[in-house]
């Protein structure tokens, strides 16, 4: 009897021949990546809408003049300081998240708990800052469908011969709508991220992943949390710097 195997019966072992994950990642993690890809499209659409409206306007409220307070400390004259604090908080909570993932790889349950709690605290601090930022802008008169009076708007626009530029009210309204929609959508992501982080932390406390033998779940929520940080990097640049 011949031992030769015909070509068609040969067991193939290339990455895409089936039977194993060609991407070498677990199903849930891959799906998290694809979800984040779709979320990236959503945020891009919002930011590109903002960009194209701003490009098509002949004037725009100056970020330096709109955002220049540190709530609770100073009311004006400090552009970017408060949002700088927010940015560092979010970067730091991203760092504590990677540290939790790293501790998870070593199965160090106590360290995972510490880093996850710090991440949750960072998330709450960011949300608190954003609430202050929103209420401050709301007090100034900006809201969805709402802008300050023409006289007050003069402080946020570059004036032409002491007068508001043509169409300034329309552009101020577009700015307000886009600002609250985009930072609101981002803040909603931070909020759900914090909730998910809390659930995962409770699971770690209960020993769920210890029993499972892998802290992969930390990695998956970590991906989501880093994505939220990633989006903020873009929101920060396009709303506060440019």
């Amino acid at each position, binding site marked *: 009897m011949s031992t030769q195997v015909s070509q068609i019966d040969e067991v193939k072992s290339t*990455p895409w021949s089936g039977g194993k*994950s*060609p*991407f*070498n*990642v*677990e199903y*849930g*993690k*891959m799906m998290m*990546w694809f979800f*984040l*890809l779709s979320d*990236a*499209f959503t945020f*891009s*659409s919002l930011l*590109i*809408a903002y*960009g*194209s*409206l*701003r*490009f*098509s*306007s*002949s004037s725009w409220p100056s970020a330096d003049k709109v955002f220049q307070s540190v709530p609770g400390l100073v009311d004006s004259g400090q*552009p*970017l300081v408060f949002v*700088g604090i927010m*940015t*560092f908080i979010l*970067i*730091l909570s*991203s*760092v504590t*998240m*990677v*540290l939790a*993932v*790293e501790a998870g*790889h070593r199965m160090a349950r106590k360290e995972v708990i510490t880093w996850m709690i710090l991440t949750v605290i960072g998330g709450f601090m960011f949300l608190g800052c954003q609430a202050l930022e929103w209420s401050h802008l709301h007090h100034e008169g900006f809201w969805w469908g709402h802008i300050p009076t023409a006289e007050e708007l003069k402080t946020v626009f570059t004036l032409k011969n002491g007068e508001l530029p043509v*169409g300034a009210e329309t552009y101020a309204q577009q700015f307000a709508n886009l600002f609250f929609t985009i930072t609101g959508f981002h803040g909603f992501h931070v909020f759900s991220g914090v909730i998910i982080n809390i659930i995962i932390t409770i699971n770690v406390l209960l020993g769920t992943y210890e029993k*499972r*033998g*892998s802290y*992969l*779940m930390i*990695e998956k929520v*970590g*991906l989501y949390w*880093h*994505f939220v*940080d*990633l989006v903020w*990097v*873009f929101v920060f*640049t396009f709303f506060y*710097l*440019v």
Partner: protein
Amino acid sequence: MSSEPTEVHHEEHGEGMTKKRIGKIALILSAITAVEFFIALIMVPKGIIPLHVANPIYIVLTLLKAFYIVAFFMHLKFEKTGLALAIIVPILFIIGLILVLTNESHYWVDLRL
């Protein structure tokens, strides 16, 4: 959910994120942000860099930060090339939308003026 295959992911972590590397990336991200603030708070108000030069610098620095977050914090650099491509290539379509809409908005501003 209860049967996560453990062997799938644990093999390739020798080259992954160590604490030292995490610290380094965190430092880089903070440094880039600090540079952005330096430009926005000191260079531009003093007129050392005009705004139309500062803006492209901000965008380049932002993309640099995005690279560090995605590649190291989100670990994409250490995943299989196929997965990295599956995530990165669709993002390129966004560049197309940016080009189309910014170009279009330049026509709108001309119509408005």
